[in-house]
């Protein structure tokens, strides 16, 4: 019988999700036996026109990583949606907008000007920007449009499943692929990872007291910390309670607190708001000044609480200036 057909594509991404597929190691070879990979720019020489040849629904499943930032990425995502029976958002950027989504704190213009006009290393007296009309080959050399807002994949196409993480663990990718190959996929729209938040799986869980009382939040550079005790109990911000489990506690094992790359658990719309909520309840104080001081001891709260989830959060980013 015919092998399932798989495609991998990246939008605005770093390539880490690709690497985590390679990290399937020997499983990669076995998987390669049981599927046909139709499209995978990082690894094989199939081009866009090869993709257009594929009949609609001709791909069993396409894993798309990266956030949607350029219009050509949106188009490609739509094409692949047509060609694929399943679309799987692969990694934090496709799932939540990821780190790239932090760009939604700024306007398109400011971002372009920054890197192509204002930087001291740049010599650009005419103020040329990529995408400006070229003297020769005007049309042919055009660049795709750079959107004002970074979007998660499901904001431009329907997504069937999500593999979370920056990067996803090879285990989860394997789990997803096997489910695709041999059935046993969960409910449509599921995030393929744990249901419970990281706290539940954390090796330091037992050290977390019923009531944490801290006087302020500490910065990571300020002092060393107990490698076995709950980070929050030591005044270090950890997103563990507001972040979906399944990451194999990679950061915790390295003695570093969680930064939330797996996104919020089911039914939480806004990881940042929930983080704020649970942090607020850590404090006994009821004095407004004191509470302000406490909160202000968090450097860059929005950047921290929304490190990976800004683009898919309730506000999606900074309000647009009129």
């Amino acid at each position, binding site marked *: 019988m015919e092998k399932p057909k798989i495609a991998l594509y990246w939008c605005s991404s770093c390539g880490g999700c690709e690497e985590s597929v390679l990290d399937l190691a020997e499983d990669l070879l076995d998987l390669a036996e049981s599927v046909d990979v139709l499209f995978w720019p990082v690894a094989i020489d199939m081009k866009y026109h090869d993709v257009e040849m594929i009949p609609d629904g001709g791909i069993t499943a396409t894993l798309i990583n990266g956030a949607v930032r350029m219009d050509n990425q949106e188009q490609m995502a739509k094409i692949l949606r047509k060609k694929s029976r399943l679309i799987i958002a692969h990694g934090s950027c496709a799932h939540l907008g990821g780190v790239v989504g932090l760009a939604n704190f700024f306007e398109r213009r400011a971002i372009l000007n920054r890197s192509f006009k204002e930087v001291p290393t740049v010599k650009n007296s005419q103020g040329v920007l990529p995408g400006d009309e070229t003297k020769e080959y005007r049309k042919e050399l055009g660049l795709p449009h750079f959107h004002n807002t970074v979007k998660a994949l499901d904001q431009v196409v329907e997504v069937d499943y999500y593999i979370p993480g920056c990067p996803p663990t090879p285990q989860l990718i394997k789990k997803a692929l096997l489910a695709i190959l041999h059935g046993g996929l969960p409910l449509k729209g599921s995030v393929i990872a744990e*249901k*419970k*938040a*990281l*706290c*539940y799986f954390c090796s330091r*869980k037992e050290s*977390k*007291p*019923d*009531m944490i009382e801290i006087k302020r939040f500490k910065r990571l550079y300020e002092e060393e910390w107990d490698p076995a005790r709950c980070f929050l109990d030591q005044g270090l911000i950890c997103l*563990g*309670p*507001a972040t979906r*489990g399944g990451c194999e506690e990679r950061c915790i094992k390295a003695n570093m607190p969680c930064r939330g790359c797996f996104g*919020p*658990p*089911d*039914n*939480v*719309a806004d990881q940042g708001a*929930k*983080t704020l*909520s*649970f942090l*607020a*309840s850590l404090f006994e104080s009821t004095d407004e000044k004191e509470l302000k001081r406490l909160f202000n001891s968090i450097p860059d709260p929005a950047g921290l609480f929304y490190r990976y989830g800004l683009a898919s959060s309730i506000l999606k980013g900074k309000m647009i200036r009129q």
Partner: protein
Amino acid sequence: MKAGIFICECGPNIRDAIDINDIATFARGLEHVVFTASFNLLCSEEGQNLIERDIKKHNLSHVIIAACTPKEHENTFRKVLSKAGLNPFLLQVVNIREQCAWIIKDRVLATQKAKAMIAAAVRRVALHEPLEVKEIQCESDALVVGAGIAGMSAALTLAQKNRKVYLVERLPCIGGKAARFEKVYPHLECASCVLDPLMDEVLHHKHIEIMTYSEIQEVLGSYGNFIIKVKKKAQFVDSKSCIGCGACFAVCPVKVKNEYNEGLDKRKAIYIPYPGALPHIAAIDKEHCIRFQGKECNACQDACPFGSIRYEETDQIKELKVGAIVLATGFDVFDPKRASQFGYGKIRNVYTSLEFERLLSSNGPTGGKILLKNGEPPKRIALIHCVGSRTKKHNEYCSGVCCMYSLKFSYLIKEQLPDSSIIEFYTDFCLPGRESQGFFNNLAGKEGVDFVQVKNIDSVGLTQRQDNILITYKDMHGKRKKLLFNLVVLSVALEAARDAGKLARIFGISQGKDGFFLEEHANIAPVSTSIGGIFIAGCAHGPKDIQSAVTEGQAAAGRIFSQLIPGENLFLEPITAEVNEDSCSGCKTCVSLCPYKALTYDSVKKIVSVNEVLCRGCGVCVAACPSAAIKARNFTDNQIVAEIQGLLQG
């Protein structure tokens, strides 16, 4: 889903301010809405029948009622839904009267807002879930802790209606402090005439099991089903055969201060607190009895004509199952040593009010005679009010009873020593209620009773002058004055019992900053606590006179009667929190937030669970939960978000 919308015109109230037809047509156009009707007065009998009829006729699955505030008729309409065979919680009431008709004069704007509110209600109700009013079986028996006047009233009231009551008392005898008074105001009745019948009834009531000389060790479970561990301390005397003849204390070689007479005289190591103490049974106090210090002594055993002495007796732990608890653990008095200017404990013949009560008492150390240490009756007596009360230094509150009992003292002194002269030093008089002022007026007339107002009590100082006591004070004009007395009574403040903190921890209830147990709500729930099924009465809750202590005892009993009915189940508030075990990560964020201790961390499952009996559905934990693992029934996240969207986007 088939939603029906009923619009109430509320007579002219809504009709005149809002375009009823306009919103009806608008509502009819909304998704899920299959039926709309408006009526003059939906809360009327007729209106309710109309709703019931239409629900059935159009077999509606959800109902929106646009009318007055839900706080007025939500329950009325819920009942209507039940009658019509719908779950009562598939209802949303839209408050278009208080929030549109009555506060927006512009008919167009009012109608506009009403539309948005109805749209919001439709979005919201679409997400409503049927809720079941859960019931749990419960014990109707009660535990009363403290056999003082408040505890006894609670116990009796409950027992009279055949409730089994366990009455636990720390001391070997019941009656509390009141039982040691000679007379009580306002009618100067003899205390024992008032209390003895009460104590007798308590003592012999078939539904009351008295456990004296006992202490609470542990409280488990919750409203309706408490499990209590009580330690019955060994008394070493067989309560059945002992008649309290006293043969044993005559022979006992050990003498110790008698705390029941405020240490004014001595008792033996085997003793009965005071003549007439009930139950009238001797007890050996292990601390002082030389036999228990290892010495050879059988004096009491040999002397006992009934062979009631049981040296081998040991402490017993008893487990009780009760549905509710009344804490009536009383008070302690302010220790004047804490206010050195009164020289208490150094200067002879200076007494606290409680000591003086014993001096006056016919079963007290002097058999009721007011005598100085030298055996002479006093001629000049001073009563000082507000000792330890109404001062930031000690207790900011007014104990509320000192004025009255000081006046009582004057009456009783005059009765016994007509020629004596009395001065009451006070700053203000606190004489509330029907009887107090008269009580004062009668006394004020009496010869040899004077009242001296001082600027503040802290300005009063006592010093020993030979056998006499010199009182110096500042009068209202700030002038220093001196007077000489031979006996002084300090009207000390009533304070939270010394062991209040320990009890609060055992029962999991809160204390005020003054140490007294904290009520659930000062005005509308004065005898209940933040923990369901635990009630407070008497001075454990704050300084009180006998009358109020009795009232609270009976009130607490009333609360129990109204909620715990034998054979009937306890109905639980359906709008509570619910933990989704699959999503809870056991991060414990919620645990410390719950004021009712309804959330507990299960260290085996490593997650949190809600005790629905204790939960009141405030939703604080829901907002805090970073995993959205807690659901607030009928106020779920998506219901509220849907409502927000409706209000903003129609």
